[in-house]
Every structure is written in structure tokens, then in C-alpha cells.
């Protein structure tokens, strides 16, 4: 996937994929991460 030129807000979840993991994925696809964090829904 090519996300070059895309700005990303990465909202992860503790019991799934966390924010920092999503940020790594987004950056590896060329995106700019403008905000990233993890939520806890339990």
C-alpha cells in the first residue's frame, strides 16, 4: 500500500493493534503520522 502524501491519525487499541504499531505501519507505507495514541476499551 502506498500512503505517500497522506496524513494519518493512528488510533490503536490495547487488546488489538496499539497506536505505536499503527504508526510504524503507516510510516512504512509513506504516510505522515500527525497523531497517534492507544485507547483502552475495557
Amino acid at each position, binding site marked *: 500500500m502506498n500512503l505517500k502524501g497522506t496524513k494519518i491519525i493512528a488510533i490503536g487499541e490495547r487488546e488489538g493493534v496499539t*497506536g505505536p504499531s499503527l504508526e510504524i505501519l503507516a510510516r512504512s507505507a509513506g504516510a505522515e503520522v500527525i497523531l497517534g495514541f492507544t485507547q483502552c476499551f*475495557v
Partner: protein
Amino acid sequence: MSPALLHAAYALTHAPDLVRYGSKPRRELSKHPGLDAELQNALRDWDDAVAYPPNQTFVGNLTPDDLRSRPQPWWQHPVVDAPSEGPFGPIMTQAGLYGLLKAVDDFNLIVLGQPLAEEACADLKGRVDLGGRLGSVQGVTPGELAKMVEAEAGLPLFHRGQLAAFIRRAHPEDDTLKAEVLLENLACKATAALALFRALKDGPIKPDDVDYLFNTGEEAVGDRYQRGAGSLAKAVAEVVGCQHATGIDLKAFCASPVHGLVIAAGLVQAEVFDHMVVLGGGSLAKLGMKFRGHLGSGVPIMEDMLGSMAFVIGPSNGRDPEFRLDAIGKLPIGAGSSPKAIYQALVIDPLERRGLKMTDVDRYAVELHNPEITLPAGGADVPLTNYRTLGALAVLRGEIEREQIDAFAAQRGMPGFAPTQGHIPAGVPFLGHARLAMLNGEMTRVMVVAKGSLFLGRMTQLVDGASFLLERP
């Protein structure tokens, strides 16, 4: 000397009239006062709370496998003639809770109305013995109570929807000593004392035999200069008469109980202490946490229970399950935060140190949140998600085939049955069941895995986790 789990006690306390003081309901009701009637109408009565199958599982009258075989939704299929006592501990009434709040209150913060005090004494009689403290469970007249609520700074407390008690603010300016915070702290203390009382009444050691305690509850007891200073462990031990003990509070969000058990087992193995207790009281702040979702889905508000627990750790007697300290899991800072990285650190690494495969573990106890509470609020079936992730790891390791992931989850997992009280569901609700199964020779090895959302405190983006392996000797 190997450390062993000598006893596991649990308690549930029904607190429907305190749901309004849970963090989420309190905030929502202040913004939308019209929600109050809707919330009140969706609360469960005592009989429904006792007969609720996950609650019966928590106190040991059903096993997790029994629960899985029961028809769902569980709230529509109650246990017939369900008792309010289980092999692991009691389910306590709300009146009993108010009595306990008064009994553990050393600063005259709680004032009960006379009718509630009488009901509390009747409910506590024969179920919990806190020495002379139950003598303090006395009330004032309804007129005196009403005047107090009018004149003093604090919070009115309700029973069956009616004004029945009051809690004072303890300092005019200190927000760590305001009535809402003190109520949370006292609720944690009271429910932890209930579990500890039960652990020492039913377990192999007496209060005088306890050397040291860790409290792993969620409350931050302290003052304006030192929030979260502690020590609720010592305060609870005092209530139950552990005259030779002291203790501290451990903090790692919901992973605290597993950290506490690991350290306690280590201290017993090192012969620093003979007998330790790891405690956790109930989280009042989390009552009604998902109530908007429950109202929207037309299900009862099932976050009306305070959970609590007390685990006794001591030298192995050759019968009770032993902690394998050569298979402790921790989540190092450098581990990464993907599910694979987390489970590599918490599950695979400790097993490999023992030369074990994932399929050598009979059961994994993960985050055991009751899905009937999380799903209507838009959340996931948290245990199932965890078990599928573990199953996927077993596929990657070549231990099972891809088609066997669901079977792995069913065979080595269990349905969630714990109230959504953070540290309470964090793997440890299974310890009572695991201990009995191992004593009966039905299980050999159980792994308990917990996670903590450190990022919620805004000091780090990291997740925490801890695990341990329990084995039949």
C-alpha cells in the same frame, strides 16, 4: 523451597445505588440529568445479581466450563435457586456494603441512617467477623441525616433509591480528600477486607500468620502532597487483625495483581517472608462505566458489582499449585507493542525457558472481562480475541494447524466471567478454579497473563504486562 498458591478467595458486592457515583455515570448525569431515571430503571435487583451466571462463576458455584455450556444471554437465563455464598467467597448485599464502609471507617466519614444500619447489621451477621468493628455500625435518625446532608460538605448516599447515608469531605480544599475520592477508597478498603477475611477464615493460615501484603487495587490513597501514597494494604490488614503484618500498594494499572503475585512468590522462595497475601478491592469508579451502551442496547446495567480478591502465597505443601519462577513473563520496554511482540514476551519466552510448547499449558487465563458487559457497549469479546491471538501464535510456531485456532481457543481458554473492574478480570479470577482443578488432578499447568494500559496516565505510550506459570506439584 517452592512458593505455592495456598488459597484464593473472592467476593462480589452488589452496589446498584452507587452506580451513579461511578466515574462515567457521574460525568454523564451532570451533563444530562434526564438520564437519571433511565439509569435507575435499568439497574438490577439483588436476586438478579445473585442469579447471574457469571457472578456464580466468580464465587465458584459454577466453573467457566459450566458457564460456557449455559444458554445465552446469561442475564436472561439465571441460575435457579442461586446461593449468595460460593466456595471462593460471598456475594454481599448493598446494605452489607454500607455496613462494611462504616465498619472500616476510622475517621467518622460515613454516617448511616438508622434503618440502613439495622439492615446492614442483619446482612453482615454470620457472614463476616471484623472483631469489634461491627459495633460501630450504628445509625442516626432520618431527621438528623437530612440535616447533615443539608449542612455539611459531602455526598448523599442512597439505598433502594432513597437517601440512607452520607459521606463527609475530609478537607475543605484537598481534592484527594473530597467525598467522592474517599468513597472510592473506602469501597476498595471494605471490599478488600471482605475478601481477606474470607481468605483467612477458609484458608490454611490465620491472621497472625500473615507477614506481608500487597494491595493491587486501583485506588490512589493519599493527600494533596502525595497522591497515591498508600498503604491500603496495611489498612486492610489492620481491619482483619493481621497483627504481625505490614504491607504496601503496588501500581501497574490492571497488571498489578500479576506483578504482585510474582513478587510475592519470589519473596517466599527467597525466604524473606513465610506467608504473603496479594489483595485487590473493588473499583467504585468503574461502576456503570459502559452504562450508555447498555441503555442503548436494552440490556440491564451489569456493572453494578464491586469485585474483590485475596490470594495467600506460602511455602509449598506438595499439594497446592506451585509458582514456577523460572517461567515468569514480563513485557520489557524494548519488546514492541504489536500483539505478536506482547505475547512473545509474556507467553512464548517464559515457556521456552522451561522447554515447553504452548500446547503443554492446559489453560491460559487472560483478560477475563465478561463479554456480555463489553459487547453491548461496542467493545470486543476480549478473552476470545486474546485466545485467537494465542492460537494464531501456535499456528506460526507450527504447534497447531490454522483450522485448529477456534478449537485451541475453546480447549485452552474460557469465557469471560469477571466484572469489568480492571485489575479484577486480569487473569486472576481463574486462580480459584485452577487451584481446585489442580488439587483434583484435572489440570497440570495454567498460565496467567495480564496487561495494563500505562498510556492512560499520560506518562508513557507503553503497554505493560506480566505473566506466571502455575503447576501441579
